[in-house]
């Protein structure tokens, strides 16, 4: 009888271990509080959304001193160009894949001439750009993403109300537009 109980307990323990691992591994796929999932579900792509309060998109742990703007992209439709106006405040940008993993990140000091100018492409579009070498790409940061879908998140510093106009201006004027190489005008074409 005692032997049987010990045996059952160890079987249970083994099952517990398996279930523990399964739960941990499956949470990223089935979790509903996932901010990345909410963004993918609720937003329309190729447009920046200013986020005053993360609550509506299920984003928690937001920094009250940094305001956010988010743009969803789908590289299957087209490559995407992110352009922001000149600004004196601290800003940073991250490119995420659908599951909320960072593909690339930069801030105002690591950007070319402190300006937000970035083109996100998939490997095929990257090959096109390499071949055509369009001039405008020289002043942009090229980000190759293997994930077709994802989103770009801009953060701008708003430590107090006196900074609000400048930072909000940056976030609201930032553009997220389809990028098309001027392949039609190249002499080879």
């Amino acid at each position, binding site marked *: 009888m005692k032997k*049987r109980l010990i045996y*059952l*307990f160890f*079987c*249970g*323990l*083994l*099952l*517990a*271990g*398996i*279930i*523990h691992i*399964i*739960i*941990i*591994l499956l*949470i*990223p796929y089935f*979790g509903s*509080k*996932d*901010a*990345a999932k909410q963004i993918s579900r609720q937003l329309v792509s190729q447009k920046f959304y200013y986020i005053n309060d993360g609550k509506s998109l*299920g*984003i*928690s*742990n*937001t*920094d*009250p*001193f*940094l305001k956010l703007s988010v743009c969803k992209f789908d590289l299957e439709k087209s490559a995407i160009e992110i352009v922001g106006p000149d600004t004196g405040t*601290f800003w*940073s*940008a*991250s*490119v*995420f894949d659908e599951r*909320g*993993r*960072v593909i*690339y*990140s*930069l*801030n105002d*000091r*690591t950007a070319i001439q402190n300006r937000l100018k970035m083109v996100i492409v998939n490997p095929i579009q990257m090959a096109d750009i390499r071949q055509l070498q369009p001039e405008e790409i020289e002043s942009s940061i090229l980000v190759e993403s293997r994930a077709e879908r994802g989103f770009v*998140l801009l*953060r701008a*510093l708003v*430590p*107090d109300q006196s900074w609000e106009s400048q930072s909000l201006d940056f976030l609201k004027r930032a553009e997220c537009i389809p990028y098309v190489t001027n392949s039609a005008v190249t002499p080879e074409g």
Partner: protein
Amino acid sequence: MRILINIFVVLLIGLGLGGLSANFALQRSLQVGAVTTGSWSAWPFVGGAEVDPYTSAKATTSGSIPLGAAEGLAFEATSDREGKNLDTRCSYEIAGSTSTARLWTLTAYDLDGKLILNDGVFVSGVYSGNIVRFPDSSFVVHVSSTPKSGNWLPIRGDSRMKLVLRLYDTPITSNSGLVDTQMPRIQSTGCQK
């Protein structure tokens, strides 16, 4: 009949312990994949491709969006330097200095990731550009429900909380541990009963 009871017992132990332990691992924010300095822990790989499953699951359930390496690094603390849980009924002094960063913010959240105070008048947070410092650039931030002179981080309520110190544009994320991470101490200065 006996076999059915056996299966039932095994399932009960398995599902119960498995579920509880998974929940516990996420609630206690296990130190898997973390970089720890004093009471502070950061998960520098949370946004990366090499993220471990625990960190990944924790990020999903918390609903937060990680900072990219070029953006900065967020350090979390849920206990003071004596190892006691942080509580909004208590007052704390956060003293010392941080690692090099262009700017940082210190904020207080409840365990669901909601700012403790953010009502337009009070914000449970301080920003590195708006604080007073000692001549050697170290600082003291008073975390308390009653106003304090100097740097005051207002809190309210009677629940557990966590403090998050975010370093923006910091070299910590872009080196291989050559720069020592330096974080301020969290010292409890008494609790209301």
